[in-house]
């Protein structure tokens, strides 16, 4: 039986940001939201690379949206999280939660 697929740190951030943005999840708001949350600018190319990996794994799906003059007539690519992606996010959270519990406080002796 195939085990659950876990997400990398940046992939998880991208996935959660897509969920947070809902219907408006395309490159610009995704990069902005990620930059705000992380506290530093993100490369839009890296965001697309992560989205491409997530799409290849079946965790997100995309579709082309409207094009606007300010985009030079280029269409937006909207993303949404699939059920498989949602399952993977939960599985990753469960594993990380268990691991975080063993994290000692700074200055605390490790058992």
């Amino acid at each position, binding site marked *: 039986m195939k085990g659950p697929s876990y997400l990398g740190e940046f992939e998880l951030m991208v996935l959660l940001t897509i969920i947070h943005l809902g219907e408006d999840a*395309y*490159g*610009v708001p995704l*990069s902005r939201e990620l930059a705000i949350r992380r506290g530093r600018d993100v*490369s*839009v*190319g*890296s965001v*697309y*690379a992560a*989205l*491409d990996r997530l*799409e*290849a794994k079946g965790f997100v*799906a*995309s*579709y*082309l949206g409207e*094009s*606007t003059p*300010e*985009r*030079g007539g*280029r*269409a*937006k*690519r*909207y993303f949404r999280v699939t059920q498989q992606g949602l399952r993977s996010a939960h599985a990753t959270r469960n594993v990380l939660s268990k691991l975080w519990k063993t994290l000692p406080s700074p200055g605390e002796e490790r058992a």
Partner: protein
Amino acid sequence: MKSIQSIAVATWMLEHLTFGSDHEALSGDLLEEFQRGRSTAWYWRQALSAIGVGLLRKSATYALPLLFATAWSTLYPAWRAIGRVPLTQSIYERWASLDWPFSTSLTIVNGIVPAATFIWLGFFIYLMSRREMAHGMTGLRLLGSLSIALNVLLVTTIALGYSGIDVRYVPRENFFANPHLVAISIQLALSLFSAIICAALQARRQHHGADSLAG
């Protein structure tokens, strides 16, 4: 003042040097941000970063098939040794004694068939190890990849034939010490690599096609 010409150059580079299907959406996103007040330097930084990321992704896509094809091609002398069983030897000798055109066809059979079957076997092994590639592989697509492998093999056989390199001649020597064997391995690796890349591109196209339909 923002340099529109400079932006046009960066956009052109972005759309022609990133090979993914996202380049249009990506350049649209950057233009949208630029129109909302981002600087030319920011635009260039983002465009160059996206090109770099795209090239890295692309090289990673090709690295594994290339590595596998190169490694697999070094096994060819062993494959030929396995093929030299008494039964195939007796068939070969009987066929060689026949008149033209059967004796001529033997030249092709003796050279191409072992090489082609070796490459096809390598292709199937790679395909089985990469589930995402094997998934959704139709008979027609499989035939296309196998045919690409055969065509590349035939073309390189003809091209290398002028240099005196003959895929039929496989001496039992140390593989890496024999330039002839190394030349054959490049030919075989190229053929196998072409088949794998053809299948990978088909799988990728199918994946994107399915997503577009879903959208």
